[in-house]
């Protein structure tokens, strides 16, 4: 009779504080170079210790350079933040995967791939895309600096219980349509606040058939749907993904864990506060046109007209977005020239993302005048990709092959799109100024970004990738 979310929640309630708010235990806390140092200094200022340093893991990702042979000094952000990050994590006894660590990478890529994040866990991080890690069946959500300090000091948080929502996705995805396209399609239809106040469970046959890496991408954009938490129930695919990861349990602990994890799935008669059905067979490759992830259309669609907006507030937002993006109503999105292509971020920087992009670019060339980058999500992803020769596929085509970090997703490290220039990006936010002041961002899947790099214009991958199937 219970949803998975309700089962996992019940297992973490230390005490109930009111009808809708509980004090909950946190199994795992990740911290990065932007959110960590501030909260750790707050802790020091208040004279508090870190209560459970063994449950916190630190990774520099936001401000680090992605250049080969990078150091702290390579970016102003890392020169400022990394020495503090090192000092504070060391003082508190927190394991840091430093810039030169073989496991360094983007927090939300590294958590699941090291087996640090496991099904049924409560996972938090001072980062809105913590929901990504729900892809392995954890309840994972982003928190603010004040809450980070609270977790460091007590390993617990007072949280208002969100209502469970089911996004039921059924049907087979067409060729060259990915998890990224499915979630953008959902947000475009339901709005950027469609999930507000809810904890999302993604289910249905499409999700069951998705790889764990695709599920991580799906859960990543939960934040862009207005919700803090999104998850996929763990199944055999999850267990085989996690087995033998460096931090995964082994032996009898593994067996006991799997038995527990199997019990977490939502009961057949569980009640969700809301259910939304998505027909996966109707999803085409998606591209955003505006300044919200909800401003997304199929790649063969046209830029909408504010005259057709559902209300005047939306019409005004669309007009501002059109002006910022330098687009006009009725214009096809396909064929729009781009100067920058970014394949990376906690949305789309895992091995499968890079493989799908490499399949499109293999043997071809990046168009003249286009700066195309691949930024693997972690050192582990980078090593695996290099073992498969993907780095050579990309560099032979004219892509830059970079070191792991958040990079052009939020540009804190200086990896920016210059004012007025246009990028197609596999990241998750096309907000005003997100990739740099006056930068124009189009969100898309790795395959669509790769195809666009080859033509120098936003391109329907289904046209150019016929030979790869």
């Amino acid at each position, binding site marked *: 009779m219970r949803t998975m979310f309700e089962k996992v929640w019940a297992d973490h309630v230390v005490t109930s504080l009111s009808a809708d708010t509980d004090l909950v235990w946190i199994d795992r806390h990740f911290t990065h170079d932007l959110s960590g140092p501030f909260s750790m200094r707050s802790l020091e200022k208040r004279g508090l210790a870190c209560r459970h340093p063994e449950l916190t893991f630190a990774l520099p990702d936001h401000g680090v350079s992605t250049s080969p042979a990078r150091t702290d000094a390579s970016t102003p952000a890392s020169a400022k933040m990394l020495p503090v990050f090192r000092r504070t994590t060391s003082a508190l006894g927190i394991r840091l995967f430093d810039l030169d660590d073989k496991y360094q990478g983007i927090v939300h890529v590294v958590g699941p791939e090291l087996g640090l994040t496991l099904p049924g866990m409560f996972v938090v991080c001072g980062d809105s895309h913590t929901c990504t890690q729900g892809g392995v069946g954890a309840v994972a959500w982003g928190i603010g600096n*004040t809450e980070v300090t609270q977790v460091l000091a007590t390993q617990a948080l007072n949280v208002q219980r969100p209502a469970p929502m089911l996004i039921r996705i059924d049907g087979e995805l067409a060729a060259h349509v990915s998890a990224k396209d499915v979630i953008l399609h959902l947000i475009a239809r339901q709005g950027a606040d469609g999930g507000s106040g809810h904890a999302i469970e993604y289910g249905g046959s499409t999700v069951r058939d998705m790889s764990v890496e695709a599920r991580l991408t799906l859960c990543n954009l939960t934040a862009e749907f207005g919700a803090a938490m999104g998850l996929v129930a763990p199944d055999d695919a999850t267990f085989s993904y996690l087995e033998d990861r460096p931090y995964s349990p082994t032996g009898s602990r593994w067996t006991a864990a799997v038995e527990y994890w199997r019990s977490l799935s939502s009961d057949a008669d569980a009640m969700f506060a809301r259910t939304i059905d998505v027909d996966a067979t109707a999803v085409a490759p998606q591209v955003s046109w505006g300044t919200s992830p909800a401003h997304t259309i199929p790649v063969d669609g046209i830029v909408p007209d504010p005259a057709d907006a559902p209300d005047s507030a939306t019409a005004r937002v669309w007009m501002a977005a059109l002006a910022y993006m330098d687009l006009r109503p009725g214009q096809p999105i396909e064929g729009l020239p781009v100067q920058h292509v970014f394949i990376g971020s906690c949305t789309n920087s895992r091995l499968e993302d890079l493989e799908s992009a490499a399949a499109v670019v293999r043997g071809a060339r990046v168009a003249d005048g286009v700066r195309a980058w691949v930024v693997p999500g972690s050192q582990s992803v980078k090593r695996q990709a290099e073992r498969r020769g993907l780095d050579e596929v990309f560099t032979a085509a004219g892509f830059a092959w970079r070191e792991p970090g958040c990079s052009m997703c939020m540009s804190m490290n200086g990896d920016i799109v210059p004012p007025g220039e246009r990028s197609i990006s596999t990241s998750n936010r096309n907000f005003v100024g997100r990739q740099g002041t006056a930068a124009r961002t189009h969100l898309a899947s790795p395959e669509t970004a790769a195809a666009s790099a080859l033509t120098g214009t936003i391109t329907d991958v289904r046209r150019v990738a016929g030979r790869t199937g």
Partner: protein
Amino acid sequence: MSGHAPLTRVSSRAMPLDIDSIDTDVITPMPRVMDGTYVEHAFEPLRFEDDGRPKPDDPFADARFTGAEILVTGANFGCGSSRETAVWAIKGMGYRVVIAESFGDIFSSNCFKNGVLALRLPRDDVRRLLAQAQSGEVVTIDLDDMLVTTSGGLSIPFQLPELRRTALREGLDDLDVTLRMADLIEDFAAEHLAQRPWVLPKADERHYQA
């Protein structure tokens, strides 16, 4: 100990910001987070051109709203990044209450952690409040009566989770409250971890040498 100023009643003109989906990158752009000037430069893309000149339609330029302690705005306010600087900037500008049809979940939570009331009201009520704010009516939010009233005659009852209402009225700091429950938390942890030993991370050295 570091509580917040108690909030029981706020009465002032209300700054109308009738734009949907203002994200936290707009409230505090990353360059301003990094250089520490996020209060002075809050809402920078709405107020300044890319070359730094003030925008002719800067919504914050209207002197009637100087000193306003209430911000009334569009749906999905504070969506996007979890950066708490967005709340610190709004608080630094003098706002103690933000009213919208909906909020980004993390932003809303961050508001309450900082003693700022993020008040969700039905769309029609927000539209009416925006109109009254625009005409310069005084808006009053009362946490005793749980009412929003205006000098223009509006009266809108609202609800708030009891815990959040108490925390705002008493200026409670969540960390202080949680610290007092440390023994309870540790008792829970002992049992929770005994039942789920895999939660305690143990690196497998074989993999480290691989």
